[in-house]
């Protein structure tokens, strides 16, 4: 058959020599390579006990932020939802009443806020779009689960712990972020 290009190389197969026909030397050579890997540095870690450090630009699970007084920052302006390329974010706004000033920072707030984690692609556009510093992506994964419904995250799952009532939880959620900002 005529070759299609002029770069064709014709392989000449020669019959195996005596040593090659024995096979054993090649097997031992291969075993030696395998054995030597025992003493080399491991590529894997024991995951749940050991964790790798996250990159400072890692984008993980979303967190809804509160201000220093524990009031929710989100005003349900819908910019995160309109920026979201996966259309994972939905919300419903409501008006703040007279006795709710300690709960919400502004006149309008998100009564319902949901992120569908099955849709979310962790692109971080919601964080970029937010004018109120209300949503940001943390350095944690969305935990795995068996049911679809458990991936619809509502305000219960997303809100950061209260900075006064639950200071430990707030600091734990906040610390990695602060370190990230310092760098």
């Amino acid at each position, binding site marked *: 058959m005529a070759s299609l290009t002029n770069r064709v190389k014709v392989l000449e197969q020669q019959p195996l020599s005596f040593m090659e026909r024995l096979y054993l030397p090649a097997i031992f050579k291969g075993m030696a390579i395998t054995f030597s890997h025992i003493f080399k540095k491991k590529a894997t870690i024991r995951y749940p006990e050991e964790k790798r450090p996250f990159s400072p630009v890692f984008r993980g699970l979303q967190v809804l932020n509160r201000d220093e007084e524990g009031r929710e920052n989100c*005003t*349900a*302006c*819908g*910019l995160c*939802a*309109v920026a979201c390329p996966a259309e994972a974010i*939905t*919300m*419903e*706004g*409501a*008006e703040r*009443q007279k006795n*709710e000033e300690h709960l919400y920072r*502004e*006149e*309008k707030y998100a*009564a*319902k*806020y*949901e992120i569908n984690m099955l849709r979310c692609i962790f692109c971080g556009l919601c964080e970029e779009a937010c*004018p*109120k510093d209300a949503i940001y992506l943390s350095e944690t994964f969305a935990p795995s689960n068996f049911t*679809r*419904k458990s991936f*619809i995250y*509502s305000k219960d799952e997303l809100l950061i712990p209260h900075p006064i009532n639950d200071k430990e939880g707030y600091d734990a959620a906040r610390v990695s972020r602060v370190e990230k900002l310092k760098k």
Partner: protein
Amino acid sequence: MAEEVKKIKVTIDNISIDVPMGTTILQAARMIGGDVVPPAMCYYTKLEGSGGKCRTCLVEVSKGSEADPRPMPKLVASCRTGVMDGMEVKNMTSPKVEDARNGVVEFLLLNHPLDCPICDQAGECHLQDLGYEHGKQGTRYEFKRRTFDKHDLGPYIQLHMTRCILCYRCVFTADQLTNKRVHGILSRGDHSEIATHIEKALDNDFIGNVIDVCPVGALTDKTFRFKNRVWFTKPVNAHRECKCCSGKVTLWQRGEEVLRVTARKDQWGEVEDWICNECRFKKKQSADWTIEGPTHVSRHSVISQGHYEGMKKPTETFSAVHEGRKPKLLMDIHSVSEVNDPSIDLSAIDGPATSATYNHSTKKS
């Protein structure tokens, strides 16, 4: 037939057009259309006497007329300046105009609270568009922004005085559409504010039009307040038989719910037909209306993000292929999600939703 109106030639940004005598520069520019049209915040074609207040439509007249070719010494407000034969106007080709407009926008935004994330007008606000085109990144104003005592304008109209740019459009609307005007501008200078004298409700039959006329979010619809963002609602043209108005409106829908009713607006954001309060505030059921189809939305507007216009839904093939069997729903979103709960009818609530709206319904279900 009346004698023929004399046409005169005017050149705006090197584009010539013949217009009848008595046309203003702004109207001539609108006849040309496109980028040469100066923005207008206070001028309104359908309101007599409007214009000349906001100064955003300033243009440079580089040649007064054929008879007197001297340029006008200062920039002129195009909405109140009539054209002359052979007039040459520079709008976007003049750096002076650009600079002046930037200054005007800075002044308009001086006391503006910039609460667009909360404001119901966001997405269809002329001040937003203007700021987007001519605004600066930050403000140079160092003082506290002025605030006002809140005035209640009744059950339908919400007033946010801090957002007002004092364009007087609502005052003209009340004067020219309704038989009695109860609101107006009180005080002077920096303290001027829209108010009624000693707390009156605006309840005249056509007073709802002040909402459509307002270029900013100072006067907004209380029945739509905080219910949804404008760009998440679907605008459709609809009409109904109405005794007092044309009944031609735009419905802003979410699913089947009618969240808001407004008059239809033309490409300059001006109302085509005034509508009455009954159509605007009372008819919040899609059964009340004959729906004509999606409203045309400019593709530069955020409202077009839903792409409702010209949308073709693909036909569902599943049941045809599977002998009439319906597809099995793996997860009903309403069983998991609390947002858009079908048991809460937002359009049925008069005012904004509150914590009570949501708590009450969760107890019920």
